[in-house]
């Protein structure tokens, strides 16, 4: 199919970049997923850590040195809601 330059220009303009922060967050998914799996596995093996997560999720994670993003926190809240 032949396109004239105006149409090509229009189509180029139809795909502006997504916000960089969105792209970075999506690129971080494998790392975030790995961290989530690690926290869940640890909570299943360690009753005290699990109780701490249920009592105060964010504090318990911070105490153990985890820096979880909002999406990971949401998944953990769902999993460890009291």
């Amino acid at each position, binding site marked *: *199919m032949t*396109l004239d330059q105006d149409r090509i220009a229009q189509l*180029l303009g*139809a795909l502006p*970049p997504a916000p960089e922060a969105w*792209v970075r967050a999506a*690129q971080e998914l*494998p790392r975030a997923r790995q961290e989530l799996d690690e926290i869940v596995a640890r909570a299943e093996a360690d009753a005290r850590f699990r109780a701490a997560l249920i009592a105060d999720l964010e504090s318990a994670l911070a105490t153990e040195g985890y820096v979880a993003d909002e*999406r990971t926190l949401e998944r953990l809240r769902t999993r460890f809601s009291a």
Partner: protein
Amino acid sequence: MAQVTLASLSDAQLVARCRDGDGDAWNELVSRFSRYVYGIAMQAFRLPEQDAEDVFQECFSRVYEHLDKLRDDAALRPWIAQLTRRLCIDRLRGGREQPTEPDALPLGVDDALEQLDEAMTVHDALATLSDDCREILDRFFAQDQSYRAIGEELDLPAGTIASRISRCLNKLRAELEGKNLGGSTV
């Protein structure tokens, strides 16, 4: 492997590398389809930004989780389009119990999806041009930068920008010759 090399991989090759746990390949996959997913959510479905961001992240999350289940690796684009479309429709339901009927979608969604699919084909062709051409065309048309801003960013005399854009558009047009635009289904 460097990003430049990954950018030249086909979708199927990229999927194969992602399945092998190649983090750089995943970064390239997200980068390659980020504009498409963003465009479907923001332009076609006109979701509010917060909803569009949730759809964007959920889409790539599902792609990551279900990459193993993709039957035809070359069909990555239509799969992502379908996934994004479904997530947008779920958002539009807004928690209502009744599912949204296809004819209840916002006017113009189908036309917008078709245009975005064509735009992706043009964008794919853009990736085959030189870095200089890719950069200047993307900055001018997709990022809406002025001649002056492009000149400053790329260290080019502003007076040469228009002719470079024209030359690069010609190259892109030549690259697109023979391609079947709109051949993919959203």
